[in-house]
């Protein structure tokens, strides 16, 4: 049953009433890689993620995550994954620390408090640890959200539009967190509507459009696909961002570039 791909999707279909959202999606994601699913709003990115995270049943097709079938081995899939949804799914009334401890206990781990402590430090939340999450900024919420997803070191992490609604600085923080994850051997499937996000992070990029994967390759492979009409339906990120980041004192270029 186990194979080399961390995620393997074949002929996935899903309709909501009259709306045929997915019309046969095929995806392979290598272990330890970052895979970006790119598409405009309503393209079905979230639907794919929800099916892979066992929250939704597909109408047709198969999907395996970490070697387990999402339909017949949902419990094993849930042991192997974590999901960070589009909206930071954190508990506003609890403190950051309590959120982390809760998830660690729900994952039946021993030493929940120590795990929480480590993650708070790793995501620079130690100072805010005992404050109610409702007082957090958008970036802090998202960092807490992602740190909650890492509890128990799941081998596969789904990030559904992890930077939507974040300011540019918070976005860079999230990007760094994603890079660190992949460097540690975790497979990351992220969805985004931002071209530059996929460009910055992903080893492979798939473009979901009209219910199908219309292109799938490395950034270099995709760039060879001219004319650019191929990608015209993806929103452009304003270059004002670079200006903004310079003005507020952060360098927008990648840290691993010279």
């Amino acid at each position: 049953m186990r194979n080399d791909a961390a995620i393997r999707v074949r002929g996935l279909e899903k309709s909501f009433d009259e709306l045929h959202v997915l019309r046969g999606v095929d995806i392979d994601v290598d272990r330890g890689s970052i895979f970006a699913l790119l598409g405009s709003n309503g393209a079905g990115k979230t639907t794919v993620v929800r099916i892979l995270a066992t929250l939704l049943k597909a109408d047709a097709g198969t999907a395996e995550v970490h070697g387990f079938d999402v339909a017949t081995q949902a419990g094993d899939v849930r042991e192997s994954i974590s999901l960070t949804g589009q909206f930071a799914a954190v508990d506003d009334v609890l403190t950051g620390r309590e959120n982390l401890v809760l998830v660690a206990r729900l994952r039946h781990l021993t030493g929940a408090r120590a795990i929480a402590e480590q993650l708070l430090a790793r995501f620079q939340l130690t100072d805010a640890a005992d404050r109610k999450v409702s007082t957090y900024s958008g970036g802090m919420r998202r960092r807490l959200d992602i740190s909650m997803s890492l509890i128990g070191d799941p081998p596969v992490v789904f990030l559904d539009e992890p930077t939507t609604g974040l300011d540019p600085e918070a976005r860079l923080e999230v990007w760094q967190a994603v890079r660190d994850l992949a460097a540690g051997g975790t497979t990351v499937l992220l969805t985004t509507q931002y071209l530059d996000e996929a460009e910055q992070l992903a080893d492979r990029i798939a473009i979901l459009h009209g219910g199908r994967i219309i292109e799938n390759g490395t950034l270099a492979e995709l760039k060879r696909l001219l004319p650019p009409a191929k990608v015209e339906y993806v929103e452009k990120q304003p270059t004002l961002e670079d200006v903004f980041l310079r003005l507020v004192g952060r360098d927008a270029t990648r840290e691993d570039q010279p």
Partner: protein
Amino acid sequence: MTTHFVGDTALLTGRSLRHITRSLDTIITTTIMPIAFLLLFVFVLGGAITSGSDSYIDYLLPGILVITVASGVSYTAYRLFLDLQSGIFERFHSMPIARSSALWAHVLTSLAAIAMSVVVVVLAALVMGFRSGAGVLAWLGVAGILGLFTLALTWLAVIPGLTATSVDGASAFSYPLILLPFISSAFVPTETMPGPVRAFAENQPVTAIVDAIRALLAQQPVGTDIWVALGWCLGLLLVAYGFAMLVYRRRFA
């Protein structure tokens, strides 16, 4: 599947109970209306009402407790709706936990929150002059009827909690429940009502529940009222639970 059910449910119940203990809004807003009704009916309207009871507040309290439960369950729907809306319900569902514990945690939290509210309202009634010589067994009977009634309405509240599309929609279902006691024996004896209204009042669940609780508190024989009350509560519970699980399964198959 069931291996972690108890532990997971306890963890998640602890979580939502913290929502209630950290901001007492829920308890305050749940109890404020029943207490206002108590004040209004005891000190303003009560003098003109002939209840056939020595003390009007003793007559009134059972109906006010029913209203407390009804206004409490609107928060059950509200809390469930917010958890779905915020995505935290999905986070729990995508984790290796006993899935139904996310829903049961809300049900248990509802029971606990409403129990707290009922205690607050009974204390307020005591301050206003409510007295009962009922023994432990009678009080246990009252708690049992109210507990079963709360459980039934809680499962009823799960339905709008799972299906509502707005916060208002999630809690609006309880308005008719709050009004139902007015067309019952809760405030005035049904004998004074005109034919059709009286027929409705005497055959709806609130009258049976209120009469049973009233008899228990007044140390009078409960007669068949208690069985009719329990029958209504159990019937409502089964129907509401069935529908709620149907909605739940459809949404999270």
